């Protein structure tokens, strides 16, 4: 049986089997059961970890309740981000407009929680009934003397990527508001790390050991005050290609701050990222310290990592993640532990992303954009995959078929970034692939 609809054929590519073309970055096909969410989701996940801001969802209850405390994004201080605030629009609000309710809700919540800023997310319905969210935000901002930022994230206005942009637009308004005196010339902002399981603390520790000051976390363990000072940094390091690249571009435009694309997943990309930062600052001493750091960290993890490699060598992996950038690192990380990636896809990759994936993957590897359960399950079977890497929505597809699974989504509670994270990643892959339970599933009884 053909698993993919005719209209989806151009979004599936096999490395080396045809000239590279990829339909991507467009609206999902109706009825295809996409794994994607919506514009609102894109904005919500990016801004979510800013822990001292109020995040108010203006709309009916669903959008707020499904995003309550769903990221493993830790805070070292306030935890306002873990609450779910909504205007819970009712029929009368839809008919007569929700501006008054929004105003009252904002005032009530700001008085109750004294946040440093407020983000107000619009949802599908708000875009339709035409509430002037920006005007309400301006008014409350004046009255309460904190930034109150509208996030134009109506769900139907494109895919998740549009949501990233809306989030970056909102943050752009914060940057530039703070005092930047006393910031070191060796300084940077971390963009696109969300402090899942405390990862950003690990990365900050690496930078501290190199002698680099981190001005703002954007957005893991994020603080409004830090983002307001972010324009004082000498450099932006950007992980997660889709989510915060727009903000980096805006900051380059507004303040001339250059950016480097980095990745903290896998030893190769992690080390390369640190070296790139050291090279940027053109400081010999810093480069020496960085080499020391990499050497030390590697020596801590290599013996155990090699044990996993021995056990896992030759196993086959499939990857389906939100952003394609993470997929690059995962392909390399699997190579580090001797495994082969046979399928890789993402919800929101760009043509450039997929071209790069086609470059770095082995012949025959399936590359796919905006896939769905039927396609994914057919790929898992066709490629006789040993482990599938994805998020909550991919997990039951793997498990139903008796395939091991590694959660690499924003809900995870395991630290997978940095050198220590590579070891955790290998442990997690090992722990799932080597479990004896696969012997009892139908697939294991062949």
């Amino acid at each position, binding site marked *: 049986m053909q698993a993919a609809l005719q209209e989806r054929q151009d979004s599936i590519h096999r490395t080396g089997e045809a000239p590279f073309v990829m339909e991507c970055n467009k609206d999902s096909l109706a009825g295809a059961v996409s794994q994607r969410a*919506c514009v609102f989701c894109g904005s919500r996940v990016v801004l979510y970890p800013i822990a001292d801001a109020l995040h108010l969802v203006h709309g009916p209850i669903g959008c707020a309740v499904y995003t309550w405390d769903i990221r493993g994004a830790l805070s070292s201080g306030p935890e306002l981000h873990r609450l779910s605030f909504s205007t819970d629009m*009712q029929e009368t609000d839809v008919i007569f407009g929700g501006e008054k309710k929004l105003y009252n809700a904002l005032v009530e919540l700001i008085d109750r929680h004294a946040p440093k800023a407020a983000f107000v997310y619009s949802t599908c319905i708000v*875009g339709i009934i035409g509430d002037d969210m920006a005007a309400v935000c301006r008014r409350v901002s004046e009255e309460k003397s904190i930034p109150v930022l509208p996030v134009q994230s109506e*769900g139907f*206005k494109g895919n998740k990527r549009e949501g990233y942009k809306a989030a970056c637009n909102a943050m752009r308004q914060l940057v530039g508001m703070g005092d930047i005196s006393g910031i070191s010339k060796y300084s940077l902002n971390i963009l696109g790390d969300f402090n899942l399981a405390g990862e950003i603390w690990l990365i900050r520790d690496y930078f501290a050991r190199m002698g680099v000051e981190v001005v703002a976390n954007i957005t893991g363990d994020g603080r409004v005050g830090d983002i307001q000072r972010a324009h004082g940094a000498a450099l932006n390091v950007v992980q997660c290609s889709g989510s915060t690249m727009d903000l980096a571009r805006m900051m380059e435009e507004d303040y001339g701050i250059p950016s480097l694309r980095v990745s903290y997943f896998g030893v190769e990309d992690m080390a390369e990222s640190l070296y790139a930062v050291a090279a940027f600052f053109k400081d010999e001493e810093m480069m020496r310290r960085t080499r020391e750091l990499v050497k030390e960290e590697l020596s801590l993890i290599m013996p155990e990592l090699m044990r996993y490699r021995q056990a896992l060598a030759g196993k086959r992996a499939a990857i389906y993640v939100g952003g394609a950038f993470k997929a690059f690192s995962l392909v390399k990380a699997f190579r580090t532990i001797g495994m082969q990636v046979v399928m890789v896809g993402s919800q929101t990759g760009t043509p450039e992303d997929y071209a790069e994936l086609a470059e770095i993957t082995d012949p025959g590897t399936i590359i796919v954009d905006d896939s769905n359960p039927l396609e994914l399950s057919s790929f898992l079977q066709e490629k006789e995959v040993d482990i599938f890497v994805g998020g909550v929505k991919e997990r039951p597809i793997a498990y139903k*078929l008796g395939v091991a699974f590694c959660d690499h989504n924003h809900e995870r509670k395991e630290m997978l970034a940095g050198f220590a994270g590579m070891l955790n990643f290998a442990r997690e892959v090992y722990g799932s692939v080597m479990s004896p339970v696969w012997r009892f599933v139908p*697939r294991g009884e062949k």
Partner: protein
Amino acid sequence: MGKILPNYVSTTNACKLCKPLGASLAFRGVEGAVPFLHGSQGCATYMRRYIISHFNEPIDIASSSLGEKNAVYGGGANLKLGLKNVTEKYHPALIGIATTCLTETIGDDVKRLLFEYRREFMQDGGPLLVRVSTPSYSGTHMEGFHAAVRALVEQLTEATEANSTVNILPGFLSAADLRSLKEIVADCGLTATVLPDFSETLDGPALRDYPLIPKGGTKIGDIRAMGGAKATVEFGHTMPEQLSGGKYLEKAYGVDLHRLGMPVGIRETDRFFEVLRELSGNPIPEKYAMARGRLVDSLVDGHKYVFGKRAVVYGEEDLVIGLTSFLAEIGVQPVLCASGGTSGGFVRAIEKAVEGFAVEMPLIHEGMDFHEIGELAGELRPDFFLGYSKGYALARGLNVPLIRVGFPIHDRVGGQRLLHIGYHGAQQLFDLIANAMIAAKQDNSEVGYSYM
């Protein structure tokens, strides 16, 4: 009475979900059916994620994936394309189409669109199309659930010869509850149509191939024949008449309706068995008489561990009513009964459930969120919380156990296997509650006895 809450404008940590989620779950309980949301892509994906995290099972919910143009010019074309694609890929027997706040607000006339679709694309047959209106700006997931059940009944039933089947409209139960319910009815010598029944479609075995649509669910033929049944048993005290499938069957086909509470605890289960006895003409099977006997015996054995303990109970209205009834029966003092629902029948039903049992009348609040529950709970000095996973933070804050029941269970395995109903369900609940109280005492004791 404790403190009076201000009437908050904002909602913080809602104690309810949205309507289309309930409709999706109900449609998933029909054999060969695919739930389909007419709205933007996010709705379907968010709900899938939410449901998957509880059941640990795939659930494919299709979407018409409306984009900006569709929101302006209408979603009809996407709805039709979506139905066509789902039909092609999934070969469903039925597509259950639920609207969302987006499509309700832009005013898509789904009934007309489906009429057109049938004319344009279904000349040579195709799946049944059942539609339900579920804008999330009114009501909760429970209204969505009931509305979908009612839509199935209204749109599928047809005049049928009288038969000896019993219709059971159980509302939102766990997969284990549904299995138990079917077993009870069969043991009583009755043939029943349970609608919906996702006991297999959302709790199935490991497989070699990914199922397009998992096996199981209420058979469409059985739904069609519901009008000929000898009676309908419908659980739920708070369901409004216009959402009641049982009422429809009564009015349209004259099928006797037995409205009961969710059979949680002794009295509500007794009532259910009484109805089954009437309908079957058979005495209660020995198996259940024994289960009831053992349950009562265990309540006696364990009554001291739970007597006077104070409980905060929250969640869907009908589940909370059933749980509260049971707590009252075992001597637990419910101190707060809360729900995000606003059916209007909650307060009276709770009052009735505890009458003559509970020492004090609990605080009873509908339309609550977890922020409000938290504001009240502190003063009420509860010994435990009883409800779904999202009350964990509050229970943790007060350093008391959360006993997990209902939906969703996102922080433990086995939510789909929790048994709430019948004597067996009451037994499981009692053991959970008593053991949680014993454990709390043991854990907080300096001595740490290894006997009770």
